[in-house]
């Protein structure tokens, strides 16, 4: 089983996670910029964070044979802090970078006017920089938030096929499917979505435009739940090709719309420098 995790926050994970992911077939990841748990107080903190998502983290991933790309944005939660508004001015130069395959995570947290403004401005940036958009849906008041999200997406003029609406569940999947946007599901140990529930959703709604991610971060989460979902699909009678579609070809197709996804030579992990191992460095 080959797995592309289209939403995982590797900055918050350990090298043991990378090792386990590689051992279980995770060959590529996309890391969306998000809230780090501790609120940031100035755009400079974001610049360093974005640099890390385009510099150190892809390098770290490559040591384990995993290809790493990023999506960049001012996340909805911190869009509410006026001290972080300057991040919107920083974004244009970052959105030109090769490692950026979408604008995200954008969307709603508490559905405030400040979030409205940042969401719309960043959808505009996605259109301008010819990037897809990764849209987070709120944890609270999710159904209302998802409806409002889809209205804002429609009003922005971005093609629905270039938008993934994430963290969906049984209640919100139908709306997003009708909109033509891609449907993202974050498989969590207890909360957002579980492998058995995901299998039921795939049975009901099919595999087209479906994205399954672990959204693993600094909270209670598990970077192997994508793999677990693949196994649950097989156990429920889906074919290996269905699993490959959902866990590999779908995320590749979505992010390839950026024109920047680089999966070349994935069978030859970039773990050597001129024949010498880099994984043992720094001891």
């Amino acid at each position, binding site marked *: 089983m080959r797995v592309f995790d289209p939403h995982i926050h590797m900055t918050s994970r350990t090298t043991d996670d990378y090792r386990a992911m590689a051992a279980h077939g995770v060959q590529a990841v996309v890391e969306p910029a998000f809230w780090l748990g501790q609120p940031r107080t100035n755009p400079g903190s974001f610049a360093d964070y974005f640099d890390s998502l385009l510099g150190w983290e892809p390098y770290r991933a490559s040591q384990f044979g995993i290809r790493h790309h990023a999506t960049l944005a001012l996340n909805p939660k911190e869009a509410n802090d006026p001290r972080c508004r300057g991040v919107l001015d920083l974004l244009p130069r970052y959105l*030109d970078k090769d490692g950026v395959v979408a604008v995200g995570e954008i969307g709603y947290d508490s559905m405030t006017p400040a979030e409205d403004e940042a969401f719309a401005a960043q959808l505009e940036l996605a259109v301008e920089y010819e990037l897809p958009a990764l849209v987070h849906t709120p944890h609270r008041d999710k159904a209302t938030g998802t409806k409002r999200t889809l209205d804002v997406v429609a009003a922005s003029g971005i093609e629905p096929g270039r938008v993934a609406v994430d963290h969906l569940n049984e209640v919100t999947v139908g709306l997003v499917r009708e909109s033509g946007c891609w449907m993202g599901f974050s498989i969590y140990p207890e909360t957002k979505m579980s492998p058995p529930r995901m299998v039921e959703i795939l049975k009901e709604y099919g595999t087209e435009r479906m994205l399954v991610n672990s959204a693993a971060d600094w909270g209670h989460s598990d970077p192997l739940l994508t793999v677990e979902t693949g196994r649950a699909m097989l156990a429920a009678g889906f074919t290996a090709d269905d699993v490959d579609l959902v866990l590999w070809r779908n995320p590749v197709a979505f992010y390839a719309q950026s024109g920047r996804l680089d999966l070349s030579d994935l069978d030859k992990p970039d773990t050597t420098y001129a024949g010498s191992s*880099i994984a043992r460095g*720094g001891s």
Partner: protein
Amino acid sequence: MTPDELRAVVAAVPGRAWLDEAEAQLRANPDDAGPLFARAGRKLGRQPLPDRPGWTPALAGRILLLLALSDAERTAQLYWQGDAAERLAVLHALPLLPIGNGGVPLAEDALRTNDTRLVAAALGPYAAHLDAATWRQGVVKCVFMGIPLSVVDRLDDRADAGLTAMLAALARERAAAGRRMPADALALLNRHLLRKED
């Protein structure tokens, strides 16, 4: 690589026409350097060159863009605002640019990273501008990180008693831990000790 060799690398890539236009655009409007430099990766190709380990068409093309730009201040800005691949290109371009000591803070920054590509590039010919203490730390860092010492420009010329003492101390630590020293580091140590006996 010399500018001619860089030209030979990009001569056959599909993005060649883009590069020609980008060089012309840079000369006409240096303010466009940021976006052009960033886009060069996907335009020229990020796949490794089969006959040159560590090199890509994008790396060669970015160095040519920096030569077209030939502007110390803007080059530094491209480094500080660059992703890892862009920074790597700036480091490789430093010895080819009329930048004097202006690139020293960039090379020092690269030596502080834990990215073997950046550390190695900082120890190329431009390392002649680094002071002895910084250079020795860089060489020993290569040994720590498993970077072959062949990346270090003028290694034997510049290896001094200070470097030899650091390598010998490291060899003792490694022996105490039951770990090996890389063969190229031991060879350097031997060469230096033999030279002293002459």
